């Protein structure tokens, strides 16, 4: 069955009432029955929940074959937790048929590719999938169909019981002996623990793994002891150098700066750019540099940003400290400046992924967002964006908060160079639709700006401000005139992953890659 972005969704995936993507806000007003976990009572006073090893924690939580384990990705490419837990479960306890439900996975988890090939891990549900894991899933080696969700779609699915977490593992930079956990302090600081919060509330069992045990009570806690079954103290939960990078610096690349300046110009031309406006930006070169130019426009107009959300890094923290932003609320921190600021700088707060972006709750921040500036691997003439699959069709990215912020914001701006090496970023048809075109409003490239025809109001804003813009078709033609028109990527029939829209419908499928032959 064809969905609203023109993708053919095989019927067998729709058995059991799953629907295809119908367009933005399709589920609005519907009711959801939330799933409740089955949790153990700890009535008898307990001095400590510390157990010796991860294996002991798994046993204490009744780990067995076929279970679903959840993880969060605040430790990013420095994460040791996923591998430690899966190793203990598979190699020490001999478990099999396991499913990993993570907020994101990366190259740090190449080991899991082996467990997939051995048939020990049979399910993957995640936002990001990269490295060897992306490769083996794309090769069709995962026993079940992987599910890719956005950061808002994941807590929605957890709350609705579409994914039931048997044991949630929380990698915590600090914890006390009963499991009150924070992202701050210790040696593996990551700042926010926003992605772990919903997991802890909806999992049957919760295990905290920390490398820094602190005195009780560890307050204010991001994950609370009331939800925690066991605490394990290990030598190290991650490589600090890869957890929080050195301060994100604003690009000096003239191409990035030019695009960033145009992003700021577009923002300043709209009526939403007024005192108290809200903003989110990615950490890519031109997206981050947009901060710099936006600040100039804010100063010129004498206005301040009301609040900013996101993944947060240094330039945003600096604006907060200068008093140019009212509040910063974040679900993840990308660099040391952000890590050291959250819950320390006045008005810099932590939030859960659900509070950030869940389309099924009653007040996600993204729904109050004025502007979001995002990148893209590919964008097609229907303004559909791909941030998941490479030009070879292999899984190597993450929708993250992209579809959530695009759908919720009043103005979603994609900023990307027109071509990357020999690849056209603006193309006829993206390999995978990760953010539907009805949520994307403006495209800024180094060769020109295009506005989605669905937004005549924004077209007028740009015209009134004298900002030149062209059709997205002409940008696509320009891209092809430079790098040539590529052949379509070849796939086998087998569906290896479902790309779920944030509302739970099916936006696209990823099929097994076909080895390329000349």
């Amino acid at each position, binding site marked *: 069955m064809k969905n609203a972005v023109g993708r053919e969704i095989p019927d067998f995936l729709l058995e059991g009432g799953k629907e295809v993507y119908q367009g933005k806000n399709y589920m609005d007003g519907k009711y959801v029955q939330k799933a409740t976990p089955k949790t153990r009572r700890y009535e008898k006073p307990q001095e400590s929940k510390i157990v010796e090893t991860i294996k002991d924690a798994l046993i204490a939580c009744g780990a067995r074959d076929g279970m679903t384990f959840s993880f969060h990705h605040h430790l990013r490419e420095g994460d040791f937790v996923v591998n430690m837990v899966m190793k203990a479960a598979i190699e020490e306890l001999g478990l099999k048929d396991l499913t990993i439900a993570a907020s994101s996975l990366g190259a740090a988890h190449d080991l899991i590719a082996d467990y997939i090939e051995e048939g020990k891990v049979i399910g993957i549900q995640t936002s990001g999938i990269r490295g060897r894991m992306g490769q083996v899933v794309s090769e069709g080696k995962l026993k079940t169909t992987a599910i890719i969700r956005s950061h808002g779609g994941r807590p929605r699915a957890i709350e609705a019981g579409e994914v039931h977490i048997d044991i949630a593992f929380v990698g915590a930079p600090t914890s006390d002996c009963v499991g009150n956990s924070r992202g701050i302090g210790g040696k593996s600081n990551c700042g926010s623990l926003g992605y772990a919060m919903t997991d802890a509330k909806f999992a049957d069992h919760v295990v905290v793994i920390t490398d820094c045990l602190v005195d009780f009570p560890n307050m204010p806690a991001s994950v609370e002891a009331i939800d925690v079954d066991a605490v394990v103290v290990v030598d190290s939960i991650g490589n600090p150098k890869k957890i929080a990078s050195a301060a994100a610096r604003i690009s000096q690349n*003239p*191409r990035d*700066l*030019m695009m960033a*300046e145009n992003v700021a110009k577009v923002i300043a031309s709209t009526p939403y750019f007024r005192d108290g406006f809200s903003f989110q930006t990615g950490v890519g070169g031109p997206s981050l540099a947009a901060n710099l130019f936006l600040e100039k426009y804010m100063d010129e107009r004498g206005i301040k940003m009301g609040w900013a959300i996101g993944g947060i890094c240094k330039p945003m923290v600096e604006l907060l400290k200068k008093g140019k932003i009212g509040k910063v609320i974040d679900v993840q921190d990308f660099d040391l400046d952000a890590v050291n600021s959250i819950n320390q700088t006045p008005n810099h707060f932590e939030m859960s992924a659900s509070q950030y972006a869940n389309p099924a709750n009653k007040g996600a921040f993204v729904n109050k967002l004025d502007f979001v500036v995002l990148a893209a691997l590919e964008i097609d003439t229907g303004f559909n964006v791909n941030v998941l699959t490479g030009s070879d069709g292999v899984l190597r990215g993450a929708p993250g908060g992209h579809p959530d912020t695009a759908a919720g914001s009043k103005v979603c701006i994609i900023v990307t160079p027109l071509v990357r090496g020999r690849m056209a970023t603006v193309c006829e048809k993206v390999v995978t639709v990760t953010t539907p075109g009805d949520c994307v409003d403006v495209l800024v490239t*180094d*060769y020109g700006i295009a506005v989605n025809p669905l937004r005549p109001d924004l077209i007028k804003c740009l015209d009134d401000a*004298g900002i030149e813009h062209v059709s997205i078709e002409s940008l696509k033609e320009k891209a092809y005139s430079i790098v040539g028109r590529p052949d379509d990527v070849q796939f086998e029939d087998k569906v290896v992953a479902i790309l779920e829209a944030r509302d739970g419908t099916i936006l696209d499928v990823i099929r097994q890659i076909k080895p390329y032959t000349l």
Partner: protein
Amino acid sequence: MIKRPTPERFRLRRTMMFMNAQKPGLIKDAYIYGCDSIMLDLEDAVAENQKDAARFSLYHALTTIDYGKTEVIVRINGLDTPHWQEDIRVCVAGGADGIRIAKCESAQDVKTVEAAVEAAEKEFGVEVGRTLLMAALESPKGVLNAYEICSASDRMFGVAISGGDFRKCMQTKFDPSGIDMLVARGQMLMAARAAGIQCFDTVFTDLDDNEGFEAEVRQNKAMGFDGKSLINPKQIRLVHEVFAPTEKEVLQAEAMVSAFREAAAQGIGVFTVNGKMVDVAFIPGAERTLKLAKACGMYEGDLV
């Protein structure tokens, strides 16, 4: 093959951005930054043993990349090198809009280049006279001979000073006040205006000194320069901002030009605009202001 339109001898040239002709990543789409002219360099940016490779890169850029309305000039190697003749052949064969003569010191230098350009135009079947010329003055001798250089050929559209070499010759160094180059800039400007061609200032090399750059650009504008050479795309915006006319100047120019055209149609030579006497002598200046305003997005009428 890309066919560029016939070059315009007198056009807007506020910004001329230098780029190494050997760097495909830079030159492949230099027009996106919105400078008026790009200056593809075969001279100092290219190592001695890479001159030939740079010419190949240049030729392919000129013949395969559509630079659109951005003017494409090439800086060739000096007449005291073994490279300049081949440089000229490549420029003409590729269809560059103009050639910048490095280290120009006399009218004869211009004439020598002109003869080689004409020979190349005939060799490659290019319309004779199509390729424009400009001269870079880099020594006291060049500055002293500025007028004869500026008026040496009908192909000449402008003259520029090269600060680095000139300061070396004068045994001075960069001074934020501009005193180090004051006489040279003044002399060159007078010569260019006397010969009726354009005049461009040297590059500002400290990319981190935004205030110094702005001060120099403002001084350039006050002295009467037409534009400035640049080394980085991020310098473009400020030059365009500084060189933009004021709103009042645009309104005045518009009033003058439209009044003149009406008056001329009625056979009237001298008339008044907003109480000021205006005659034909004011019109080229007013038209220049309107063209500049149009390029800066400040004027959308059809008088120019």
